[in-house]
């Protein structure tokens, strides 16, 4: 499909990474463009967007092709599989609930088998593990800054697992081009590199189609846009998204294939034990 006009999500969630996994509870048929509902509050909108970006279905799986292009036009490609398991199923999950993520690298060939495991907690710090097959080493990553690069891309860790709704103040601005516009301002400005960010949310799918991050001097230094959305198993699903870092001159495009919801992922595979041998049958 033609790249739809973007929406961004709340901060990071823009990332297709999560969005891919997300099954939409809304599962609304795409064609009829819904009109923005003037009665929805900012809080209601971000919750539904959070849900459609990160929490669709009971679980989800997607293969991801990541293309990082630097300021000189040089490309780096990575391939990975993301598995996601929800603890809460249904729209309520969008308020923020625990989740588990398993990210398995396939390419470049020499990082094949590298795995990230994330236990995302609605309250308290996430748990993260990293497995490095070449060193046969599992490392726990202590909670720290989540706004660090995900595998050298322009996506942040936080973009993968979602930014807590309670971390920002949300304000609904006048709609633009039939999209909800939400302005998000961090409650703890010192902990993040942005001063605020704006997202444009599709009123039909609640997918954040476009996002803009502003630095302290009010300049846009980072943008997100969704370039393709498909309905999969009734869930509007981002299948292509792009983040551009204006300051660095880099862009990252994520393409999602083989997206499947309600795979039936067992909880046990999201454990330290499975890092060394991620279950092949779910990675296909």
């Amino acid at each position, binding site marked *: 499909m033609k790249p739809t006009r973007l929406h961004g999500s709340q901060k990071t969630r823009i990332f297709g990474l999560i969005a891919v996994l997300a099954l939409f509870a809304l599962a609304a048929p795409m064609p009829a463009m819904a009109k923005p509902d003037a009665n929805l509050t900012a809080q209601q909108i971000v919750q539904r967007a959070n849900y459609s970006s990160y929490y669709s279905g009971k679980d989800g799986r997607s293969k991801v092709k990541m293309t990082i292009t630097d300021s000189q036009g*040089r490309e780096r490609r990575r391939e990975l599989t993301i598995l996601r398991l929800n603890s809460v199923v249904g729209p309520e999950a969008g308020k923020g609930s625990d989740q588990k993520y398993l990210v398995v690298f396939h390419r470049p*060939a*020499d990082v094949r088998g590298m795995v990230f495991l994330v236990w995302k907690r609605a309250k308290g710090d996430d748990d993260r593990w990293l497995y490095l097959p070449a060193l046969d080493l599992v490392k726990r990553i202590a909670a720290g*800054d989540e*706004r660090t690069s995900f595998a050298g891309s322009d996506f942040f860790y936080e973009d993968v697992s979602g930014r807590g709704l309670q971390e920002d103040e949300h304000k609904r601005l006048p709609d633009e081009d039939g999209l909800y516009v939400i302005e998000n301002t961090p409650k703890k400005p010192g902990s993040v590199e942005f001063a605020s960010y704006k997202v444009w949310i599709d009123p039909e799918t609640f997918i954040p189609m476009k996002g803009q991050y502003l630095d302290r001097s009010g300049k846009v230094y980072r943008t997100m846009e969704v370039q393709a959305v498909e309905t999969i198993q009734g869930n509007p699903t981002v299948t292509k998204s792009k983040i551009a870092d204006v*300051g660095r001159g*880099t862009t990252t495009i994520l393409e999602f294939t083989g997206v499947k919801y309600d795979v039936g992922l067992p909880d046990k595979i999201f454990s330290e034990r499975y890092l060394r041998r991620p279950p092949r049958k779910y990675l296909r």
Partner: protein
Amino acid sequence: MRATFLSDWSADHPWLTVVLSVIITALMVSFIPRIKIDTDPENMLDKSEPIRVFHQQSKKRFSAYDRVLVAVVNDDDPDGVWNPDTLARVHKLVKKIERMEGVRPVNIVAASTVDDIEQVSEGTVRFRWLMAEPPKTREAARHIRDRALANPMLAGTVVSLDKKAMTMYVAIEGKEYGHSVATGIKKVIAELAGPEKYYITGLPVAEDTFGVEMFEQMAVTAPLAGLVVFLLMLFFFRRFGMVVAPMLVAMMSIGWAMGLLIGTGFTVHIMSSMIPIFLMPIAVVDSIHVLSVMFDRLRHGEERKAALAATYEELFWPMLYTSLTSGAGFASLILTPIPPVQVYGGFVAFGIAAAWFLTMTFLPAYVMLLPQKGLQRLAASTDSEGEVDHGRIARWLERLGPWTVRRSRLLVAGTVLVAIISAVGISMIRINDNPTRWFHAGHPIRVAEKVLNERLSGSYLAYLVLEAKNLDADGAYLSELETRLTEWSKKLEDGADEFQASGQEALALVKKAFPEAANSENPREAVLLQAMSALEDKLYEVDDDQGTAMEEVLRWLGDEAGKTKPWSDPAALRRLEKLQRQIEKLDGVGKALAITDVVRKVYQELRGGDPKHSVIPPTSSAVEQSLLTFQSSHHPEWLDHYVTPDRRAINVWVMLRSGDNIDVTRIVGQVEKLLDEEPFPMPVQRKWAGLSYLNVVWQARMVGGMVWSLLGSFVVVFFMMVLLFRSFWWGFLTMVPLTLTIALIYGIIGIVGKDYDMPVAVLSSLTLGLSVDFAIHFLERIRSVYAEVGDFNRAIEEMFREPARAISRNVIVIAIGFVPLLAATLVPYQTVGFFLLAIMLISGVATLMILPALLAVFGEKLLEKAEVTHSTYRNES
């Protein structure tokens, strides 16, 4: 047509000549406001020079932005700058710098912008900012310091090895922001008002500051020198009307030369900024000559026009030749392969031509337009030789003449001795340049540089770019793979059968991939990747045990794929690391930073933090996985500073404590030798870039170029002299004082140990041009005097009246006139001041003492044979 038709025509049409001169001058001067100052040392090489192209390409390839360096020192605190108060201020400073126009916030390297990987507990690491917030306690501050010291990328740079100081590297979008960013930083520092000391330097700052100071020198020092010359002439000639004309000629020719230079779109470089200073003496000297002779005639009652005509008749040839020889010296610089030197040489030559032309046209017109009364007064007020009596100097000169003849043999012997000493001095010359040293030693930039070079890893930078080739996937590689696979599978104990089977399968797939992959950019990698994909497809069809075996084989293939990327190979990285340590031991090197430092730091922390793990990991996949871990940081793109994404080329940042070309040349040579002695495991092409290296390149060219240009102009001047005097021996004689002058000046430079740098090299042409003047005038004159009086001793006596006084007057005017240059803040200006002084003194003395002595010993016969050729100098008294 008469040789003097120009001056005749101008004398006939004085108003038209003056109006035309003024119009041309106004036109030329109107270009001057468009002036573009160029202080970029890179421009010493043409933009298309391969080395410069490579330098630019390397900068881009490795994201090496121009940087403003800020060193922070606090010697009052026991912990240096690593205390909570200082760190709070420094933290604030960086935050403010990040928001400055032209700064690249993502590329600032400072304590608060870099990452740390920290051990939290057994098996747990934390990635975070080294200093996200300023520390609250001394202990926390020291902890930050120690974490930085434990990072090979930061030790010696962000934190000094003496644990007291720090550096911030502020990357900027382009050099043009250097000045504003440095100014902005200074402003913030002033507001912060801590006890710390800040030292700001870096090439962009130096360039900008240099540009500003150059402008000041041009606007202040040069006009000041002009004023002093003017006042001195006024002192000698006492008459404003007499002195103003040479000044006008000088200023107009300067206006023409600078106007044309700027108008034709050239930028003003350090050397061309001194064009006015070079043109002033040359232009002034000729006009004074004309006026002296001319007033002399007027005083003898000649009519104005006739006196002018006769004066030009007499002086035309010597003036033409002195202009031609001076011009030739400068024009020869066009042959040097350094664009700013070419521009400089070309436009000084043009200015000399302009000065000659104006002396031929404007000057006679000026004389014609002087009111009759004023003219008479001027003529009358000057003494018999067109000047006021010198008193002591004049009497001393009159005694000097006969003395040179009496002591001629002694003088000739002395000349030989001076020549020998000069030769020894020249052999001691040290060729060396460092554009930073163009600032005087007390300049803030030099002070900042000293701090960086003594306490941190240095302020100079050279890049060693090592590029490897992707290797072919051929039969030999296939059998190599087969052997390695067999060896590897032997090492596995469990499930050997499955491994064997998977291994064989993989090998079959590799073989199948060969023909197709052979033509890709990295054929070996392509073969392996294709085989891996094929094997992965089968992965989902097999049972668990078989699958596990396949996974292992896939990992092995992945590691092999890693090895096809040259700079993922642990063997290559180990050699690189050894090379870095070898380089760091070289005198003048502060640090050699490379991809190995990233790899071993991450590997060490992943392995638990023990310093014994600060090594290159054993396999290429371990290297790549460490690098991917590094990229999960705030600055994934910083990897680009060290290695290209395809791992084919790396950049070693060689930080130098000295930017002297002599040191850089030595270090480059030593590194090359180290690489020859112990090469990398794969074929590697090595190339240098970085500004410190570019300086070495243009210096080498300059030295070679200058030798040829000096020799070339020497030969040209010699032939001109032979032509002028229609005699080989007279030509030879003319060359003696100037040769001795050049030899002695460069001999002194060698003996006192002043480096032979760009300004010194370029000044050889000035020396040649100016010192030949005296000899031409002296020899021309003595030939005509001798022709009249027919006796050598009497001729010498005559020569040591007016002609000798004219020469010594020029010596005094120009030597003293340019003394203000010695007080200039830019060293090249001081050098020029010294040269002008030395050229005038030495060539004056050489002409007045050596030429008569030589003539007395060898030359009387020459004089007898000499026919007076062009000029008709008259003997007045």
